[in-house]
């Protein structure tokens, strides 16, 4: 009998049903696997393929401790503790645990938060340390969760606060080095794309896995020496306490390299508690952000210009009548009585404005501050000493200040007659300190910097040297300026320790009121000086004190602070006295 199904038999019917079912399966599978392939792959990827951001660690900030880098700003992992009130089963136990472990970091209204059963996420404690979080995790309390975040830690508290800056809630650097070098410190987040299991464990299966490691931010080493910084802040605070001044700033520089060793500003703040600051001015590093009329300390720049151009010598004389006429204005001395034929050294010693105007006139035709004289002064102040322009110091918010050019409206003889003794121009302390450093180091201008290098695998990799402008004044001019400022300082009781070569110049500058007129009842006291041996200048220090409605003078209020720091620096730098 032939093996064929008899038409209409039950077996044949069963065969037809089976084949039909098979056809349905095949068609459905074809639809799912071929026609709708992309959709289902996409759905599967959504479910299984996870894109995880690998956060880059923010770079740390180091300062120097002598020759050793020490950490000033670090990262610490802390936890935000939250509850899911809907799944909490033991609310009392959770409250007890959080209170006993997290302490002051726990929220006050824990019971109220946990009992909100319509909520799924309530923060119950913040900034919990890893150890505290582990203690809580051990209790295995249902509904309690932990979210790790990174926060900045400042072991030195408020030391160099305005130079460091802080990191805000959006993890962005603000002010100081944190703000200026935010991109370098931030680094670049990595990416991990992978198939994961239900516990989010990445698996190597899958064709679309990406593992791009994070690039951590650079760890920056500052030129700031924490010991010098600490003492400078202390000396400044003591000085303000003595004088009752409310504001003060100080900078200590290495004149041979342009490296800034300390920058202090008062009032200050704690970077870790930046949210508690009520006056945002406390965030600014006044040394670089606040331009002002520097007053008589500026006479050192005018004397240097005169010496370098050869129009004066320290013992050059002029007739001082305590006043001098420039166009239709009369310039007078603040210190009266040193009249008659006196030297430029005398003019510097007693801070006589007439002496500086005389130098400006000699740069012209001898009687007028001509355009040529003004051009020369501008060339020295602006082009050579970098006044009135950004220095490029790596601190956020640097101000350029302003030195009016002779080609601008207002750049006339009267303007320049006031500029030569420190009025009518705005400069920052860092500009003045950097320019003065060039005057006392033999004539090389170094751009001021706070960056000493980066930490690379635990060792310091020095930063490339910033370009310097050598020979902006002659060595002879530099030597004479050092001698003149040394004499100017030693003429009055200085408090210097014997055997060292210290020089400097006082400055007392009036401030402007809202209408642009000078106030006589509010002055800023400044002192600018250097220290070291007769052969080499080791440090430059500039101090400024001010206060609302206060008459503060360079000689009385700022100079003692300079002396305090200077004497300490001699010990710290282990400088040996002569003789």
């Amino acid at each position, binding site marked *: 009998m032939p093996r064929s199904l008899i038409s209409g038999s039950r077996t044949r019917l069963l065969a037809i049903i089976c084949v039909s079912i098979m056809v349905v399966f095949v068609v459905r599978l074809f639809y799912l696997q071929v026609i709708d392939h992309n959709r289902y792959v996409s759905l599967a990827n959504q479910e299984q393929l996870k894109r995880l951001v690998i956060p880059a660690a923010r770079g740390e900030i180091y300062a120097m401790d002598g020759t050793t880098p020490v950490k000033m700003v670090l990262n610490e992992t802390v936890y935000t503790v939250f509850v899911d009130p809907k799944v909490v089963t033991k609310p009392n136990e959770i409250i007890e645990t959080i209170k006993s472990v997290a302490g002051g970091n726990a929220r006050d209204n824990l019971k109220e938060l946990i009992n909100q059963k319509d909520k799924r996420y309530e923060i119950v404690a913040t900034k919990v340390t890893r150890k505290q979080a582990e203690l809580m995790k051990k209790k295995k309390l249902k509904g309690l969760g932990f979210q790790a975040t990174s926060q900045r830690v400042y072991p030195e508290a408020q030391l160099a606060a305005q130079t460091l800056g802080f990191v805000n809630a959006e993890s962005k650097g603000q002010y100081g080095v944190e703000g200026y070098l935010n991109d370098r410190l931030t680094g670049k987040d990595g990416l991990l794309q992978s198939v994961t299991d239900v516990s989010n*464990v*990445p698996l190597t299966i899958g064709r679309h896995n990406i593992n791009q490691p994070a690039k951590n931010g650079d760890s920056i080493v500052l030129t700031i020496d924490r010991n010098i910084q600490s003492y400078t802040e202390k000396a400044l605070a003591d000085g303000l306490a003595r004088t009752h001044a409310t504001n003060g700033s100080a900078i200590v520089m290495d004149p041979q390299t342009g490296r800034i060793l300390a920058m202090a500003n008062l009032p200050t703040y704690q970077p870790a508690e930046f949210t508690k600051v009520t006056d945002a001015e406390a965030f600014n590093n006044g040394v670089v952000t606040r331009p002002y009329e520097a007053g008589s300390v500026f006479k050192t720049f005018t004397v240097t210009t005169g010496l370098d151009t050869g129009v004066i010598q320290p013992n050059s004389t002029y007739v001082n009548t305590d006043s001098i006429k420039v166009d239709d204005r009369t310039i007078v001395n603040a210190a009266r009585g040193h009249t008659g034929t006196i030297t430029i050294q005398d003019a510097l010693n007693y801070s006589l404005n007439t002496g500086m105007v005389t130098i400006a006139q000699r740069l012209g035709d001898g009687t007028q501050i001509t355009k040529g004289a003004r051009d020369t002064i501008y060339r020295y102040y602006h082009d050579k000493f970098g006044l009135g322009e950004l220095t490029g110091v790596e601190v956020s918010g640097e101000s350029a200040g302003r030195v009016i050019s002779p080609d601008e409206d207002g750049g006339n003889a009267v303007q320049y007659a006031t500029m030569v003794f420190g009025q009518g121009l705005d400069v920052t302390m860092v500009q003045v300190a950097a320019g003065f450093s060039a005057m006392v180091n033999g004539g090389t201008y170094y751009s001021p910097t706070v960056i000493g290098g980066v930490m690379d695998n635990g060792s310091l990799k020095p930063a490339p040297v910033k370009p310097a402008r050598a020979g902006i004044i002659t060595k002879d001019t530099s030597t004479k300026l050092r001698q003149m400022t040394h004499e100017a300082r030693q003429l009055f009781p200085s408090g210097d320790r014997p055997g060292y070569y210290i020089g400097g110049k006082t400055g007392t500058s009036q401030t402007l009121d809202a209408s642009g007129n000078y106030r006589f009842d509010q002055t800023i006291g400044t002192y600018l000086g250097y220290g070291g041996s007769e052969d080499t200048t080791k440090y430059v220090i500039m101090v400024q004190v001010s206060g609302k409605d206060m008459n503060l003078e360079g000689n009385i209020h700022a100079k003692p602070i300079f002396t305090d720091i200077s004497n300490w620096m001699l010990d710290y730098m282990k400088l040996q*006295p002569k003789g």
Partner: protein
Amino acid sequence: MRQAPYKHENKHEIMSYQRTPTYTRHQGNWNRNQNTVAFASAVKLGPVTHTVLVALMITVLGLIYLTQATRATGYDYEAQKIDSKIAELSSQKTDLEVENARLTALETVRNSTVAREMTSPSSTDYVRE
């Protein structure tokens, strides 16, 4: 000394002659010295057995595949455990560094018992070279 029955270089051929109880000669082309022996097995396998064997082979192959795939995933879990351990140790290291920085901070050192008991030198002499 015994003589070999045939002079063959191939050892297997010798053995096959010795083990062959019966043989059938293929009809058709054959040449001299050519092995034309086919063996008939005493065990006969039916279609069901064949099907079961094929199914078993497929199952074994499937199990081998699954074992390999699971092994790869197992390594992932191992790697994850190691990564977690590294992260934990790294976190502990960071905590210790923070603690170290706090303990060696100037303010801490200044307020230490040792520092408090220090006195300033009454005079300083310098070594002359």
